[in-house]
């Protein structure tokens, strides 16, 4: 079978090198040309021997989430790994230490817990490691070598990535780890492969294209850089901090400027100031920070100033659960702020989408002269996926509507009412374009005005100009997958939950249910026509999302009036494919499950 779908979970204790092993594995497979999705779990405490889990899914086709069942479990520490053995499917493999140093009490060894349908491979990890490297520190690398031999993983890629990972250390460290890998590989020759886990050849990568493993936050950073970000202002907040940290290193190299401000309010204020002055400006925060920023967002909307705000959602409300994922800031992003302050809101569904939406955000902000909010979530921010970058830059460097030559004596109208409701824009430094923008309602010149007629026209302008965003080039604001035409069950989802929704749709289709899924990327303005067309095809509609109130369901049903079935989960973990699938099955049978 040529198509590959292999998911490996490595589980150990802090200090076993679990995350490092997962890192090498995912990078090696990406280097070899496979598509990879990976997500790691860290121990909750900073100190101690907490559990580390690295999950890596390797495929040839594009997939959108991790699988609930893994194909192989590697245990570096049975005391943690035993609780994950149920995650491995039948006829998958469980690899464990078969010569631990300490005497174990009954039931503390993996051999008692491997399920009858799974294949156990006991390996003397420590011994193999010590024979090859005189210490047991590289057990995590030994098991990678074992995996490589058992499943035909590309050895050359592993050697490259291992050498790369240790290149800042003394050469003997890298060499020792390569020896550990080779020793694990050699040890596997004595094992007869009894599981049915297979790896097919990688998919073909286009000429000149570059495959990179990135997290959602990393992709946001790359999108900003490729779109020519000029200014960034931020305040540290989990899980958005890494965006600022990476930009802090890269932006000065590109001649751009970054400043950590004293709070989120000054961050958004400076971003808007920079946007006003013509720079492509952005900030990044999470829910609590966005709550502080909404007053300024309103100013950006009223003064028609371009700026970009990246929001990585986490458990809420208030301080919430800073290290857990959630999707509960939709209301805040779409509606937050005083008055009718509509702005553009996008929510990518995978890492490649994070890259694209990040860059496009600057285009949209500039073209429609408005703040643009990009919603991620903690899971998407920290999840690794392979992204294929084409060699051409896909972003437009200048989307501003230029000011035509002014007649002398004619005052420049910053808020000129035009057919497409977007005014030609001068920025400080432009000759003859002097004007003042304000948070007060204003006339075309920008002078404060509280006339009812002016406020009506300006309100219309600020809202109607955004309709153009629905047709912005090269960006899927909304896309349907699965069965065409009338279907039994439609799934409407946003953000990273779309990944699990798509997998559930495919599973439902395999069970004979006519099913289709639609991702909503542009949340404001909402593509009501496209969504309405989708809903009309669906006998039942399910909206799964990681928030208690069903915020997308409310948004859609508020604008379209169609009753929707909701699936709300606020466990702090990504939605399970099985949970969505169960609801789809129930709806297909004609009744909504409780």
């Amino acid at each position, binding site marked *: 079978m040529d198509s590959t779908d292999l998911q490996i979970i490595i589980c150990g204790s802090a200090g076993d090198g679990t995350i490092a092993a997962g890192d090498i594995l995912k990078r090696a497979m990406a280097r070899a040309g496979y598509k990879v999705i990976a997500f790691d779990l860290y121990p909750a405490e900073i100190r101690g021997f907490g559990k580390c889990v690295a999950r890596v899914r390797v495929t040839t086709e594009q997939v959108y989430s991790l699988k609930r069942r893994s194909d192989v479990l590697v245990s570096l520490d049975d005391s943690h790994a035993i609780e994950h053995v149920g995650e491995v499917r039948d006829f998958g493999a469980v690899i464990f230490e*078969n*010569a631990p140093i300490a005497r*174990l009490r*009954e039931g503390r060894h993996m051999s008692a817990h491997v*399920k*009858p*349908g799974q*294949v*156990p491979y006991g390996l003397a990890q420590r011994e193999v490691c010590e024979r090859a490297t005189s210490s047991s520190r590289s057990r995590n690398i030994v098991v990678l070598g074992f995996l490589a031999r058992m499943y035909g993983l590309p050895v050359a890629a592993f050697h490259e990535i291992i050498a790369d990972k240790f290149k800042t250390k003394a050469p003997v460290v890298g060499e020792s780890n390569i020896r550990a890998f080779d020793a694990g590989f050699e040890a596997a020759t004595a094992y007869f492969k*009894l599981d049915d886990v297979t790896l097919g050849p990688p998919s073909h990568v286009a000429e000149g294209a570059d495959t990179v493993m990135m997290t959602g936050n990393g992709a946001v950073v790359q999108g900003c850089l490729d779109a020519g970000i000029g200014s960034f202002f931020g305040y540290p907040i989990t899980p958005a901090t890494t965006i600022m940290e990476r930009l802090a290193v890269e932006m000065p190299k590109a001649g751009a400027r970054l400043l950590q401000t004293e709070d989120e309010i000054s961050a958004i204020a400076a971003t808007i100031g920079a946007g006003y002055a013509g720079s492509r400006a952005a900030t990044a925060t999470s829910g609590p920070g966005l709550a502080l920023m909404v007053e300024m967002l309103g100013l950006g909307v009223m003064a028609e100033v371009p700026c970009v705000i990246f929001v990585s959602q986490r458990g809420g409300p208030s301080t919430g659960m800073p290290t857990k994922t959630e999707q509960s800031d939709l209301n805040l992003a779409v509606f937050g702020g005083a008055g009718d302050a509509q702005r553009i809101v996008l929510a990518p569904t995978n890492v490649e989408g994070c890259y694209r939406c990040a860059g496009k955000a600057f285009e949209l902000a500039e073209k429609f002269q408005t703040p643009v909010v990009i919603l991620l979530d903690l899971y998407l921010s920290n999840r690794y996926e392979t992204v294929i970058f084409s060699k051409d830059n896909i972003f437009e460097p200048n989307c501003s509507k230029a000011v035509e030559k002014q007649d002398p004596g004619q005052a420049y109208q910053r808020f000129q009412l035009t057919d497409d409701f977007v005014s030609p824009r001068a920025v400080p430094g432009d000759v003859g374009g002097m004007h003042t923008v304000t948070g007060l309602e204003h006339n075309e010149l920008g002078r404060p005005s509280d006339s009812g007629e002016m406020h009506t026209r300006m309100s219309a302008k600020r809202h109607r100009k955004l309709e153009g965003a629905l047709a912005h080039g090269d960006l899927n604001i909304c896309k349907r997958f699965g069965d065409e035409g009338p279907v039994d069950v439609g799934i409407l989802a946003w953000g990273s939950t779309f990944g699990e929704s798509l997998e559930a749709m495919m599973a439902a289709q395999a069970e004979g249910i006519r099913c289709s899924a639609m991702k909503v990327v542009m949340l404001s303005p909402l593509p009501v026509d496209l969504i309405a067309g989708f809903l009309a095809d669906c006998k039942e509609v399910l909206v799964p999302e990681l928030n208690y109130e069903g915020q997308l369901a409310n948004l859609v049903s508020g604008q379209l009036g169609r009753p929707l079935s909701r699936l709300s989960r606020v466990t702090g973990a990504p939605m399970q494919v099985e949970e969505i699938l169960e609801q789809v099955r129930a709806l297909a049978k004609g009744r909504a499950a409780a």
Partner: protein
Amino acid sequence: MAKGTHHVIIGIGIAGNRAAEILRERDPDCRITMITMSRLPFYNRYDLPKVFRGVRDWREILVDPPAHYDKSHITLRRDSRVTNVDGQRGTLTFAHNEEIGFDRVVVCTGGSGYLPEDLTDYRHLMNGFATFESAMTVYELLPEGGRVVMLGGDMIGLDLARTLLETGYRVTLVVNDYTFWPHRVAADQRGKYLEALERLGIEVHEGAKLERVKEGPKGMPARCLVFEDGSEVFGDVVMPFCGLVPSVEFMLSSGVDIERGLLVNPQLRTTNERIWAAGDVCQIWSAEENAYRFYYGWNNVRAMGEVAARNMTGEEEPFVSIGDEDLYVDKSGHINSPFWQHD
């Protein structure tokens, strides 16, 4: 039986599996742990020749599906080797450094292939056939129409030979003292049986003693056997079938009596009141013969497993063998044996 009695079964062959079935039937609440060095759940070793009939996936030869063990609340420990059993304390120890307790243990570890002393030097050039993995290895080594050279040819080997011939391979039998094991056939009685084998298509090589085994020269089959009279036999795979030796090393410090196998009374209990044994691993006291003796064959082994399990749960039944133990040539001139019968 007291609730939660922990029965441990070491070895999941036919005896061990039957014991597990009976234990679960008779005591629905007891804990049962089955231990095996194999990586696979219970499969019938008599089915291994099917590898040459197209079976490549071990799932096809499983006797019970994996779900069976969960349904019967049996803890199946695979890839686990027992290194010691302490009958006094009621504990056993694994090679992977775990210690567990038990109330009753039945040892069903059977036997491993015996290799005569003078051939041990050539172990690395020969292939066994005791597990699915070794069967698949042989299958992968044999080219189309390839030749297997069998040393000895016990009934397990001869059973395999039948299948090999039927599936287009060739077999050479090198006769020695273990030919037809466990049947005891005197050298001067062998003739008619060997003829029957030749009629099947097996090439029988008798006479000079085997001197050594070596790799075949380039361009020739992979193995070459050299005899004391200078003659040579070539083959792609060399497989010794010289009978079984009971697997009892881990029991040596347990305190029970051991001769060649574990010594048990007719109720299949060892000299330790908590330890039973069943199958090829035990020698059962026979009052008639006034000696401890082995019983072989699928029917016997299965019956032993059942008897042991019944006695572990309160009974005092003696094992009764199926009786018939003789090798014979049937009406159509084919060799046959009660040890080949199985479900």
